[in-house]
């Protein structure tokens, strides 16, 4: 029998399947599995990660490089927020 889960009842770990976030100190973050940038300015970068949005906040944030699914954010990262 097929089991249907509502968004609220979805297990936490399943929400992040398909993305990988690697952080080097607080200066660089590599994100694999991005589906697009939602907001981009020097103090905030929001990335669509499929089932959630990942918001990077800090100073002097910029994209070092990006392609269809991966991106690297450089700058002084203060916080990373997962917005569901």
């Amino acid at each position: 029998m097929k089991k249907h889960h509502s968004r609220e009842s979805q297990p936490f770990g399943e929400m992040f399947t398909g993305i990988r976030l690697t952080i080097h100190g607080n200066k660089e973050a590599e994100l694999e599995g991005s589906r697009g940038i939602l907001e981009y300015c020097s103090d905030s970068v929001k990335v669509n990660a499929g089932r959630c949005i990942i918001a990077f906040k800090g100073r002097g944030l910029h994209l070092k490089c990006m392609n269809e699914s991966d991106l690297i954010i450089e700058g002084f990262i203060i916080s990373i927020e997962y917005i569901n």
Partner: protein
Amino acid sequence: MIAVLLFRWIYGYFDFTVNGTFPERFLNLASRKGVRLWRTSGSKESLSASAAVSDMQLLSGLAKKAGCTFTVNKKHGLPEFCSRYKYRCGLLIGAVIGSVICVYMSGFIWNIKINVPDELNEYEIRRELAQTGLYEGVAYNYNDISAAERHIKMLDDRISWISINVFGTNAEVEISFKRDNKDKYAEKTMISNMISKADGTVTKIESGSGKPAVKIGAGVRKGQLLISGIVPYSNGTNAFTDSQGKVFAKTLKKVTLTLPKKTEKTLTDTDKVCIKSDMKFAGLCIPLTFCGSPLTENYKTVTEKRLTLLGNDLPITIKYEKIQPYSKVPENIRPNEARKELERKYRIYRTFLISGEDITVIKEKLSFSENRDGYALTVVITTEENICENKVVKVRES
């Protein structure tokens, strides 16, 4: 990273700005199309980045699609450099010609540095090398250099080793002599006498080694034995030595200096001095001045100056030739002028020929005379001098 920068420069890139309400949409479209962006920096409604020149049209279309304005700020890289200077082909031609000249000139020897012992003349070595085909401005050829080495080695028996090393366009010649140990040994075992080099009366004897053969007060003739190198022992045997010592004697010298009554006086004309300069380069002599040579008799003084740059000799020599015209005027010399001139000549003679620690002038008598041909100054000089002269005794084994 340097390789990436180099490739970007070779293929060309440009800086651009995208303005609009939602520039992030432009970023997403660009990433979906696989366009590589770098140096991205964004604010609320604008985005700046760099991309390859080949993606310019695509990015412009994507900006339109995202509802943004697309502005190219600056182009960089080789394609931009070429397009900027495409109407100045002279620069390219000059660069190509310059490179070709550099490559071609590197095949020649432009500077020859010679390190020789003091006994050898650097100028002569340079001339001999030129005869064998090694001179400044010649094309580098290994066979010529080895032939030059052989030729120089055969010039002088004392040369034991020669090497000509070529570093780039410089040739360095090193010559060293043989060590002559045989002669030093022969000097140590030499037997010699001291003989007289002038007639005189012995006043003092300073004998080092050997046996004096004369006594103080004795009169000696030129060539007479003064100190013998063969010293007899009381047991009948002899010791053979290299005799050393000084024998001072009172001697008489007679010097006659003459001057003709009629002579030619040289008059130089300083206003007509001509200085010619030539530039020597690659075996060519290029005149720098065109003053010409005077038709009258003249003296020439030649000076060569080699140009240097940062301590390195350049293959350019500037030759200065100073030409001083002169004329000869017959002149009659008066007796008082002749006497002054002859006395001046005698003073020079005395300074250079009767001087030193082994000779003292006791008395000198000057007499000036005039005859039909000219004037004469006769000087009788009484000196006390060392009259010893070393003479090697040849010993033959029997």
